[in-house]
């Protein structure tokens, strides 16, 4: 990429032109990366880290398919520039299972037939994990409202809500 004459390099972080060093912990692995400032977290995960479980749906923060956990909080990775996240801990769908065991939400989505095409599912599950950590959902209505940032065009909503409610009821830990 061309740097305009006289354009200033980022000052506090690096002397390098064009890329900025960023440390991220992604699914438990420490990563030191040199990132172009316009790279979204979503593109970094999919294209750079080859973690293609996180999906690009609308790329505008409207569908929720790209939802990941940033320092434990669910956010749309398509609207986050990766350079702003230095030091952050990122958890994607690939990081939820442990030691060969599905995460309770993954198992619940299977048990409740909570997906059809599956494209929104990684975002749904990361969002549900964020919802459980937040601790604000106490009823089925709460779950419906607090999952409203995740669109499912197959219309699997009733089963998605069933799956989330089951894990909530079991008191799954954040």
């Amino acid at each position, binding site marked *: 990429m061309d740097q305009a004459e006289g354009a*200033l390099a980022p000052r506090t972080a690096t002397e390098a032109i064009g890329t900025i060093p960023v440390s991220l912990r992604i699914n438990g692995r420490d990563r030191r990366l040199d990132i172009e400032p316009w790279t979204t977290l979503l593109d970094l995960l999919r294209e750079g880290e080859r973690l293609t479980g996180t999906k690009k749906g609308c790329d505008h923060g409207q569908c929720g398919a790209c939802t990941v956990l940033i320092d434990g909080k669910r956010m749309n990775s398509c609207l986050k520039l990766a350079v702003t996240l230095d030091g952050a801990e990122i958890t994607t769908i690939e990081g939820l299972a442990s030691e060969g065991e599905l995460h309770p939400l993954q198992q619940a989505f299977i048990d409740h037939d909570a997906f059809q095409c599956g494209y929104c599912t990684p975002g749904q599950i990361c969002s549900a994990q964020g919802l459980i950590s937040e601790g604000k959902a106490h009823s089925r209505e709460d779950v419906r409202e607090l999952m*409203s940032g995740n669109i499912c065009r197959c219309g699997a909503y009733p089963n998605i809500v069933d799956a989330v409610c089951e894990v909530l009821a079991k008191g799954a830990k954040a």
Partner: protein
Amino acid sequence: MNRFDYVRAGGLNEAVREGAADNVRYLAGGTNLIDLMKENVERPTRLVDINRLPLSAIEELDGGGLRLGALATNADTAWDDRVAKRYPLLASAILAGASPQLRNAATNGGNLNQRTRCYYFYDTATPCNKREPGSGCGAIGGVNRIHAILGASDQCIATHPSDMCVALAALGASVRVDGPDGARAIPFADYHRLPGDEPWRDNNLQPGELVTAIDLPAEDFSTHYTYLKLRDRLSYAFALVSVAVALRIEGGTIADARIAVGGVAHKPWRVPTAESILHGEAPGQNAFLAAAHAVLEGAVGQGENDFKIPLARKAIVRALRQAADATPQSQTDKRVA
């Protein structure tokens, strides 16, 4: 997205110095700015990342108010115990907006400074005086179901999309800013602008000025309040019309009334003379209707949005009743009672 320089501001002075230059944008949560950059509506040459500035606290103010840091997220603000208990109108309005993911990223300062969701503003193939001064307004005579009925001009009929700001207008908040010429406080009613003949100016910030906090006054209206939001789907949609009402009722009569309307103008719409109609009145349908008519005085439809005028009138009456009865609108159970 265009290419740009990126600077991570280490302190407020550094940020403000950087931010005063042409075509520089402050970056906080990024939920609106990054989207606009993807659409080529915003094409900054430099981003000043302010996320490391110490502006995310929520603190008590002397005299009983609360200071909301500009970098506190919308979610952390709405769920803060003090906000939820003492300013439920604000918490309710925040939770009526966007999605949980967006509220986790979006900041309070960014909420104030988000741009309109007018289709023509977003579509660079069409004219828009806000995006490209002098190019015209596609919405006038165009597709304008979501547009303004109050305070519009012949250059722009866009609306401000925020829910949070409607509650802040009703509460009479104050916006603290810092900039090249020092710090100042802007009363909320003077923060956003009407489009007039400079529709590209959404607010009265001067070049380089940065929102640092929002101060809530001591009077919290935590008993008689409501935030009623009407939209095309029940969650995760911008308001067609929304109403924030805050009442102080003493001895069965209204001692103070605040009515702010969202989705109808380039800023949250308040009409002090309409509110004063209610002063000294007992809560009741006739008084509510009189106030609603006064709020909407001068309302003009653009064709597709004509329905907003009766909708807003009815929403104001309904919201006044909800507030007077101390039965605020639930943001989970969307049935309007």
